């Protein structure tokens, strides 16, 4: 049972575009929703995270939108750059589930 479903699997945008990656979760006890960025040969790095008491959080060019009723959250990257090309993972944790459950990842390519 996949508790966090992520889409799309891959995404190609032009420089300056706004890629959007979506995640949906099943466990209503989840209360922490981070996004991780992973470059080839590196470990995942925490990018931005949100808790369900807010519907949006912005850090620099990265924004998380959160819809508690739909059990969905998404990552938007404003003014995307080639250096943003990486694999992005959404994750969730909470309740008695003190571990991060990851989505399957989205490979983002930003063309110059």
């Amino acid at each position, binding site marked *: 049972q996949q508790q966090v479903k992520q889409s799309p699997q891959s995404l190609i945008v032009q420089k300056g575009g706004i890629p959007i990656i979506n995640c949906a979760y099943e466990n209503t006890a989840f209360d*922490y929703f981070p996004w991780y960025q*992973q470059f080839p040969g590196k*470990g995942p790095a*925490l990018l931005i995270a949100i808790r369900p008491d807010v519907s949006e959080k912005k850090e620099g060019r990265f924004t998380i939108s959160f819809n508690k009723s739909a059990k969905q959250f998404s990552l938007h990257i404003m003014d995307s750059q080639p250096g943003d090309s990486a*694999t992005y*993972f959404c994750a969730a944790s909470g309740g008695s589930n003190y571990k*991060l459950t*990851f989505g*399957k*990842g989205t490979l983002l390519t930003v063309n110059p």
Partner: protein
Amino acid sequence: DTAVSQTPKYLVTQMGNDKSIKCEQNLGHDTMYWYKQDSKKFLKIMFSYNNKELIINETVPNRFSPKSPDKAHLNLHINSLELGDSAVYFCASSPHPMNTEAFFGQGTRLTVV
């Protein structure tokens, strides 16, 4: 001054061998994890330790044995390696079990031949 460091970065070994991966964190965190990332990049938790005590043990073959000598170290020992164990193994840490803001190491790419 790497926050979460693991060694080795690459490990190539034959089937049936026993190997260990070491992990150290200097963040002062209480909780440490081992994750496995398969060839499709799926990240799955294997184990979690809080202050040297095992708190999460997912469905992992008992050939995998984590050991935490102190809260800054979590090592992973794998016995009788199989081809299917080939993957990238990541160590991570977080402040405490209820705070899952995890910081990952650079990974160990294990190849079993």
